[in-house]
């Protein structure tokens, strides 16, 4: 009678001390065999849909590459810009591949990888507005996507100008619609998106009028802040994309036009 008791006690002690290490997000992704990427699909050429309504773009290819290195199946979860964090926190997506600017304010909430792309911002307007450069935006009706890097920078300048208005919309598509119809006269938008929009021919009279004097807009992959295993993997992945030449290849495929892929490092400092 004693022996089973001792055995039971021993088993209990073992059970208590040998608690298995909790699987982290990286383990979960590999175990589940599926990588769910939050991608914004109204932001060409980073993310959009083709004629068959299939997701395409730089971000979609990046997600596919990431899934391939992990040996799992990619799944694109369409996520508008404002919903990127709720998508990660609620567990609808594992990682955000959605051109997310790495601001320090946001880094308090979400984890960023090293940059995987960088944007310059340009002034996008219509031919009839007479706007020729960024300085001409003072006093005009302006708009942008709520809370994105270029919207924050533009609004800061707008506040120092007199007159005009500044409106924010929930998607890039609505900004272009408002610009096309005349509710706004100009917007500041990433150069790649501006070029792709002008070239699409969907909007008559859209023209790019010079660069906006903002800092380079580095964008990162995002994951939950405490998922170090996953974030480390994302860092190495972003690094390897450049090292293997895949970054240049994707840039040529989606942006191209003879432009050089933006440098992802800042001279004179570590990341």
């Amino acid at each position, binding site marked *: 009678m004693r022996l089973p008791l001792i055995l039971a006690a021993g088993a209990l002690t073992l059970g208590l001390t040998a608690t298995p290490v909790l699987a982290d997000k990286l383990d979960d992704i590999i175990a589940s065999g599926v990588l769910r990427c939050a991608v914004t699909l109204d932001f060409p050429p980073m993310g959009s849909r083709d004629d068959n309504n299939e997701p395409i773009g730089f971000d979609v290819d990046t997600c596919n590459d990431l899934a391939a290195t992990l040996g799992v199946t990619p799944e694109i979860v369409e996520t508008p810009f404002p919903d990127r964090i709720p998508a990660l*926190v609620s*567990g609808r997506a594992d990682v955000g591949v959605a051109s997310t600017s790495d*601001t320090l304010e*946001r880094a*308090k909430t979400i984890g960023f990888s090293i940059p995987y792309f960088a944007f310059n911002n340009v002034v996008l307007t219509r031919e*009839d507005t007479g706007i020729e450069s960024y300085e001409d935006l003072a006093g005009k009706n302006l708009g942008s996507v709520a809370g994105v890097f270029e919207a924050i920078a533009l609004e800061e300048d707008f506040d120092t100008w007199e007159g005009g208005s500044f409106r*924010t919309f929930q998607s890039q598509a609505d900004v272009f619609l408002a610009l096309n119809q*005349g*509710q*706004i006269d100009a917007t500041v938008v990433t150069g790649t998106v501006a070029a792709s929009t002008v070239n699409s021919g969907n909007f008559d009279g859209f023209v790019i009028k010079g660069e906006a004097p903002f800092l380079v807009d580095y964008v990162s992959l995002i994951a939950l802040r405490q998922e170090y295993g996953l974030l480390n993997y994302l860092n190495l992945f972003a690094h390897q994309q450049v090292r293997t030449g895949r970054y240049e290849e994707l840039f040529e495929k989606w942006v191209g036009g003879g432009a050089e892929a933006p440098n992802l490092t800042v001279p004179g400092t570590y990341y």
Partner: protein
Amino acid sequence: MFNINYTFHWNQAFRALPDMLEGALITLQIAVLSMLIGIVVGVLLALAKEARFAPLRWFANTWIEIARNTPALFQVYMIYFGIPAVLQLAASLFGIDFRALGINIFYLDSYWAVLVGIAFNNAGYLAETFRGGLRAVPPTQTRAARSLGFNAVDSFRLIVLPQMFRAVFHPMTNQMVWAILMTSIGIFVGLNTDLTGITQELNARTFRTFEFFALAAAIYYVIAKIVTGGARLIAWRLFRY
């Protein structure tokens, strides 16, 4: 589940409270103005719907049917994006390009688009409420007023309308609360100064989604409660027998 994924930072949300309350003021402003317009237009629509002149009836019916049977979001979106597009298209059929001429009369600013849209919606709903209220006032009231020497306008204005408002006051309070909550639709047409617009911008800037949205929901709740409480006080003063 949230405890594993997310740590709440409430102090960051509370620091933004003054900005959000400023937004709440804009929200309340739009709701009140849209309600005042809605009441006036609603009374007119209710009368038009009972009119003998058929085109008036058609006009009122069309308005009420659209306002009550399509999403409010659709109505606001159409006023902001739809009408300018249709007018531009129509003008271009006649070879006129308003934009080239520098005419921008059709473009309502986001604030006005939301105000007009919600006033349109309010008027449609209130018209039906008022029609019910008018039916609740016995026709003998009008006849009595007329026999005492009131003219047609005065007997409606001084005898029928006050009794109608007494009958429909509580449904009107509902509509007011509905109007406050509907202003949140503004974010889809670029409104970034009302409570929802400011909340969404703070959210996009800091990614503190849950804190800001919870706080915004609480503010909406308090405003709605104040409005219903205030309405009860007004009703007690104005309409007690």
